[in-house]
Each structure stands twice: as structure tokens, then as C-alpha cells.
């Protein structure tokens, strides 16, 4: 039995005439300790898939099995790193992480909890920003806090929903390494949802493309047989890497073209010119 299993998942939104099937016939098996990446276009139902796995949503039909038991609710065993950080803006870095740790380890006393928080904040190298609020942090720092928050709960599986999507390339690269480092330490099972093929290849053991929705379904999987730790520059010259990368991109491009030819309906857009609202309503200051 696989560690995480998705059997014939379908998810529809709306009812009656408005019914729209976002995901259909999703089958996925993830083994313990594996790092799997799902790559897809924006709007292809990636976030819905994540929410089904972490228990925020229930599938319309089919079953999500985690360690053999169906997922009915969220659980501390599955940590989530959200796309838009989702830090609570009124809490400091320490308080944000502490809130999660307190829930995960209710039996520990305050001092032990604080030590855990300090350790994980240190791990994402944010100790100097311990008492700052999310607003005072850069995007990369915020996402680090989110990483620390998810990992501090010591989940058995980490689910990442485009965690680095909103970051610049440099920060992105650094955080990829950091996440891999942390993952490498205790080899937790990890599921990464991303729209960046290179990121997927660099980080994951397996890549599965998600064919865009509506009726999104998973494509054929691509195994990444590259030694860890991987080196980004060396990887670019690796024949194996090039082959896999081209195969995935070709596959995604084909889907894209397919989608274009399918969309024959022409939309007439209204001829609108944006008004200069900002200057029109400028008051004082």
C-alpha cells in the first residue's frame, strides 16, 4: 500500500447548469520518503488538488487515502505551505510559529515550545527577525516563516502549494536549496505543486504533469534519475536532465496547443479604455 493514495478523484464545483468538473479521474500514489512534484499551468486545478490532499476539501467522488485511512479532515501529520504564505499579520514571526507548535504539541510546556520555535526559526535563518511582523518582512522572508511554521509541527508529509511562486528568481533558488536541505535531513514525504518545470526537476524524484482543467487529470509521470545533492549548473549539461526536461516541456506544450485548437469560440471584448482614476481622485498629501 502506498503512503498517500488518490483513487479516481473527481471534484466538481457548483450545481445544476453551473456544475463544473475541475478535477476528473485523478490517480496518484506516493511512497514514503518520496519527493513528488506536480507541474501544471495556472488555473489547472492545482490548489484544489492540494486542498483535497490536506483535507480542506472533500472529493465529489473517489477517495484520498493517507497511510491506508481515508482523509476526512485536516491533520497535523500533513503540513501545508500555502501559496500566499498565509501568515497572520497581527502576530510576530515567533507568535506565528508558536501558534502552530502549541497546537501540534499540547503536552509540552511553554519553555519547550519556545525552544522548538527558536530552532525552526534558526533553521530558516530568521532569528534576527524573530519579533517582527509579516508586514516588515520581504516576500522571501515571509515564505521562510511559512516553511518554519509548517515544519515546526513535525509533519510526516509536507504539502507545498506553489510555495515559491511569488518570489524572484534569486530568492527562489536559495529557498529551493533550503527546503531540499531540510527535507534531506529526515526524508519526510513531500509533495510539491509548481508551475516551474526546472524547479520540479531540481527538487523532485518524480514529476507528474497536470493536464489543465476543467476536467484536469494527471498525465504520465516522469522519473528524475539524478543523484542528490543536485548541482544546478552541472545539471544543465547533464544529458539525462536535458532529455527529461525537453520531454516534460514538449508534453505540456502539446497540451497547450490542444487547448488552443479546442477553443474555437471567439469572444468579442468591449472596447474599454481605463480611466485615470488615480489622478482624478487625488486628495491632499
Amino acid at each position, binding site marked *: 500500500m502506498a503512503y498517500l493514495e488518490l483513487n479516481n478523484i473527481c471534484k466538481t464545483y457548483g450545481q445544476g447548469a453551473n456544475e463544473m468538473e475541475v478535477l476528473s479521474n485523478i490517480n496518484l500514489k506516493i511512497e514514503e520518503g518520496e519527493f513528488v512534484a506536480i507541474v501544471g499551468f495556472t488555473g489547472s486545478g492545482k490548489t484544489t488538488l492540494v486542498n483535497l490532499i490536506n483535507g*480542506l476539501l472533500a472529493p465529489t467522488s473517489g477517495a484520498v487515502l493517507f497511510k491506508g485511512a481515508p482523509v476526512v479532515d*485536516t491533520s497535523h501529520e500533513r503540513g501545508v505551505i500555502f501559496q500566499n504564505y*498565509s501568515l*497572520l499579520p497581527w502576530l510576530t514571526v515567533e507568535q506565528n510559529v508558536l*501558534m502552530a507548535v502549541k497546537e501540534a504539541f499540547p503536552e509540552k510546556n511553554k519553555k519547550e515550545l519556545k525552544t522548538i520555535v527558536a530552532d525552526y526559526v534558526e533553521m530558516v535563518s530568521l532569528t534576527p527577525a524573530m519579533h517582527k511582523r509579516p508586514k516588515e518582512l520581504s516576500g522571501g522572508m515571509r515564505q521562510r516563516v511559512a516553511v518554519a511554521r509548517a515544519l515546526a509541527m513535525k509533519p510526516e508529509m509536507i504539502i507545498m502549494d506553489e510555495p515559491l511562486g511569488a518570489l524572484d528568481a534569486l530568492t527562489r533558488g536559495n529557498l529551493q536549496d533550503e527546503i531540499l536541505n531540510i527535507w534531506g535531513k529526515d526524508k519526510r514525504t513531500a509533495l510539491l505543486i509548481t508551475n516551474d518545470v526546472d524547479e520540479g526537476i531540481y527538487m523532485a524524484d518524480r514529476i507528474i504533469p497536470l493536464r489543465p482543467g476543467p476536467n484536469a487529470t494527471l498525465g504520465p509521470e516522469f522519473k528524475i534519475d539524478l543523484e542528490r545533492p543536485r548541482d544546478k549548473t552541472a545539471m544543465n549539461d547533464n544529458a539525462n536532465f536535458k532529455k527529461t526536461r525537453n520531454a516534460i516541456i514538449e508534453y505540456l506544450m502539446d497540451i497547450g496547443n490542444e487547448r488552443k485548437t479546442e477553443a474555437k469560440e471567439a469572444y468579442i471584448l468591449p472596447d474599454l479604455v481605463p480611466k485615470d482614476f488615480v489622478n482624478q481622485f487625488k486628495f491632499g498629501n
Partner: protein
Amino acid sequence: MKASITLGKVTNFLGLGFFSTLKNLFTGKLEKEDFKVLLRKTIVPLASIVLFIGLWHLGAKSLYNIEAKFKIEKALKDQGQTAADALKACIASGESTCQPNTLPSPAQVWESYKSLLRDHHIISADKAAFIEKTAVLNAKRIAAGKAAITYTGRPSFVDQIFRSLQTVFAGFLLALLIAVPLGIFIGLSPTLKSAFNWFIQIFKPVSPVVWYLLVFMIVKTLLIDSNEDSSFTISFISVGFCSMWATLVNTAMGVSTVDKDYINVAKVLKLGTFQKIFKVVLPSSLPLIFTGLKITLSVAWMVLIAIELLAQSPGLGLFVWEEFQNGANDSNAKIIVAMFVIGIIGFLLDRLMLTIQNWVSFDKTDAI
């Protein structure tokens, strides 16, 4: 340097940013850019105040002339030339008995303001003397188990202001204690929302006068055995009921529209209901709750005057009503003084709420 930064911060925080520019003017640190700001934020408002007082003065003068002319013509028609001449001379001499009764001029209002202050000092001195005089006797009475003799003279204008503030804060506190918890429950539960919706929609627009009458009916019966004056109780409860709606609606809205991301976080972390409300839902709806409370306080202050007037509860409302009934020569001027005092206190209360709002809110943007 450090002091000026602090001052700037404090004044900006209070929304009185022009003070720091004004300070720069006096310390000679005025830059060219500052001058524009000074012009806009200090000189223009000051000029408009002067213009306002000027227009008021002219308006009051012309109203005075209309009233005087009418009085003289009436005297001429009813009593003949001699009486008219006598009245004319009387008005010109400034004799208080025959002055036209109309909108007072700014100077008269200023005079009344000073006389009200003088009156306050006299009453305060009187009160202090009374307390001193009865101190020994009261000590004896209390020792003997009898009630102390209290000062029963009329309250001064300043006393009325404080009494009004007491009423408004009692009413505000009542509104807060009812509306915030109720708003949270309504916001959390769609069932409760549909149960209370009609109630809110119907009672929200009810006039303060009607609220007063309703509260009066109920409180009068509840306190039927008591000999105490219930006017204060009635007026603060009415103020609370009139003003609580903004907070109720805002709280319910804030609680029911918490960002979905935060709710997801709460779910993923598996926070308990209590934790979820106090750690996620309430902090994120605080800005809206405070917007509601700010409106509530200003509505409370606004309806207070009408309610005090009806309830005969001491305070500015009663002061205005009594002066109107009094019809003395300077009554109109005193009413205008009360009007300005009410306005300025309302403004200060609003600033107070804004300051508290900025202080508790995580989103430190200017909320003016």
C-alpha cells in the same frame, strides 16, 4: 532632534500633523517644501475660520437690524411715535431689556463663554465652601449612621459637560457590551444571522426619541420601588440602544468576512473553536469592529443631547433646553456656546477612537 521626531510621530498619530509644521515655522527650520504644506494645512484652515467668523458676524448683524426695525415699526404702529423713539434709544444704548432676540454675534458668544466660566468658578467656590462647612457635621452624621448632607445647588456649565460625558460613556460601554459579543455570534453563525436580521433592519432606523420613550416605559416600571432619580439610567440606556447598531453590523460583517486564507490556516493548524475565534477571527475583524465603535461613539454623542433634553437628565442637552426656555438676554449666546462645546467634544471623541483604532490595529494605515 529626538524630541521633534517624537512630537511629529505623536501629532501624526493623532491626525494633527500640522502641529509639527507649525513648530518648524517657529524654530526657523522651514524648508520650501514645508511652506506649501504649511500653507495648505495651517494657513488655509485658519483663513477659513476667520472667514467663517466674519460671515457669522455680518449675518448676525443683519438679522439684528431686521429684528430691531420690525420692533420699532411695531411700537410705532401700536403705541405711537414717542414709544417708538424711546425703544430706538433703548436699543441704541445697549440696554439689555429691549435688545432684539436673534442670532448672537461672535463677540456676544465669546462674552457668554467667559460668563459661563466665571459662573463655574463661583459655583465651584461655593461648593468647596459648603463641603468644608459640612465636613465636621457629615463626619458626625456618618458615624451616627445617617446619610451625609450633599451639595444641592445648581450645576455649572462645566459640571453639565462632565455629566454628559458620563452619560455618553456609560451608553457607549453598554453598546459595546451588547453589540460586540452579539455581532460576533451573528457573524459566526448564519442561522443566528437570519434570526436577527429582521430585528436589526427594523430597529436600526428607529429615532432616538422613540428609543427614549421605549426605555422610559420599561425602566420606569422596573425601578418603580426606587426613590432614586432614574433619569440618568434611562438616558444612558437610550443612548446605548440608539448607537449600538453600527458596531453590531460592523462586527458581524467583520467576523463573517475573515480572509479565507486565515480560516484555512486555522483549519490546517487544527485550532479549537475558542482559539480560532480569539486568535484568528477577532484580530482580523478588529479594524472593522473599531470602525463600528467609532461610529457608535459619534452617534452616541449626537443623540445624547436630544435624549438628555427629553429625559431631563442633567447635561448639555438639558442645559440647551433650559436656556431656550429661559429666554434671557444671553440665552441664545449660551446655546451657541453649548453648540461649539458639543462639536469640539464630538471631534475630540472621534480622534480618541481613531487613536485607539490605530493603536490596536495590525494594519497601520491612516484610517481617516
